[in-house]
């Protein structure tokens, strides 16, 4: 077989990636020893692979390195100690034997007990550490659950109160005891926004006034709309309102009687006299 053919038949990649069969492996290693161009091609592919892996690296978590090194150091120290022990104290065993024969008083049963208690102690320390870690984990999980539960309850309450407001609004719109006054932008020749629309619901029995801002432009943050009742040609303040939600009623001041209602844009908090240049809508009762 031509070596070039062998290089490009796929065996090289199988070998490097570890998917070659044992026979293919053995054959490839023999061929490599015989043909320098084959090992050069293998080396080139390996470099490519390494480069590719370095480009597709994922950083491990920081503790992995510490764990590896502490394991290696423990293993290293142990073997170091073993060699040290035999080198420095070649007679340690003999010395121990002598000591043992001179102190025969210690009961063998006690000795087993002592060993067993040390083992138990070690096991129990291990178990404590393990359970303490588990306990910490559970506490964290529990706290996370509690905080998400609190958040859900908060959301639920918010949604419920919004729903309640909408229900109240619908009941009001269906209530025949309500007088409905549509206030239109086109009723005001100087309206800054002639397509504006707001509706006053005026309870015939209690004289309560509600407003729905159906289509009012959003005012600047330092401004607020103000509702006025026109009583015998004089404007009477009926309160200020915001236009966050066009489908929610807003309770205004109670008005005993009026011939018309109008809305002007005023400074935040309202004015004592309406700004006639900024009258947006008006509607007759």
């Amino acid at each position, binding site marked *: 077989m031509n070596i070039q053919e062998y290089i490009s038949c796929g065996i090289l990649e199988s070998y490097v990636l570890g998917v070659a069969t044992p026979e293919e492996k053995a054959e490839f290693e023999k061929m490599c020893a015989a043909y320098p161009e084959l090992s050069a091609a293998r080396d080139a592919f390996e470099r490519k692979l*390494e480069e*590719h*892996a370095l480009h*597709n690296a*994922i*950083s491990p978590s920081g503790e992995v*390195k510490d764990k*590896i090194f502490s394991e290696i*150091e423990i293993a290293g120290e142990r073997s170091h100690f073993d060699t040290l022990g035999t080198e420095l104290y070649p007679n340690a065993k003999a010395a121990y034997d002598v000591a043992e024969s001179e102190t025969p008083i210690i009961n063998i049963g006690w000795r087993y007990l002592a060993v067993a208690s040390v083992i138990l102690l070690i096991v129990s320390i291990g178990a404590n550490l393990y359970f303490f870690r588990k306990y910490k984990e559970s506490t964290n999980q529990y706290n996370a659950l509690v905080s998400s539960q609190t958040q859900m309850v908060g959301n639920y309450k918010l949604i419920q109160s919004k729903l309640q407001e909408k229900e109240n609004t619908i009941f009001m719109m269906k209530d025949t005891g309500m007088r409905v006054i549509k206030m239109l932008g086109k009723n005001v020749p100087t309206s800054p926004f002639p397509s504006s629309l707001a509706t006053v619901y005026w309870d015939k029995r209690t004289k309560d006034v509600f407003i729905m801002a159906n289509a009012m432009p959003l005012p600047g943050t330092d401004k607020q709309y103000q509702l006025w009742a026109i009583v015998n040609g004089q404007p009477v303040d009926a309160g200020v309102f915001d236009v966050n939600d066009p489908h929610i009623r807003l309770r205004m001041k109670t008005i005993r009687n009026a011939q018309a209602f109008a809305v002007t844009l005023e400074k935040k908090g309202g004015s004592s006299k309406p700004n006639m240049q900024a009258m947006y809508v008006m509607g007759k009762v």
Partner: protein
Amino acid sequence: MPASLLYSEQQLITLLKSRESKAFGYLYDHYSAALLGIIMQILKDEPVANDVLQEVFISIWKKIESYDAAKGRLFTWMLNIARNASIDMLRSKAYQNEKKNQGLEGNVDLNIDRQVSALNVDNIGLRKVLEKLKKDYRILLELAYFKGYTHEEIAEIESIPLGTVKTRIRNALIQLRQELK
């Protein structure tokens, strides 16, 4: 990144074989992320992959004596340790049970199609390259490389003759190599 190379590969190997922990630290800093990339392609579970990475470096440390530069580069040797450890983990009972508990089926053999489609969303390393190959090739490399099945096992799983498995894997690898360039 040759600019950041502190040791030549030859020096590094010599130092590692004489148990120089500084050299091992360098090895870790330089290659741990690349190896984790490989492990993640097989295991796809970051905490488990980090555990396997730890195991891999400990066995690199223990087995460094047996590394033979005549058979390939140091990285290739480490890569194969990482791949084998990942596949062992993939096949371990504990891992399979965990995956089962997460609602995935433990029997990998029955889900080749799903694996291949899961593989489409993977966007790392060799898997990304694999995506460019045709489906037959992808399935075979998935089984051979990422799942560690032997050619005989693959022939059985896919019900195709052993000879065909061998030829297809080789052709797939030739293409894979070309895509790497």
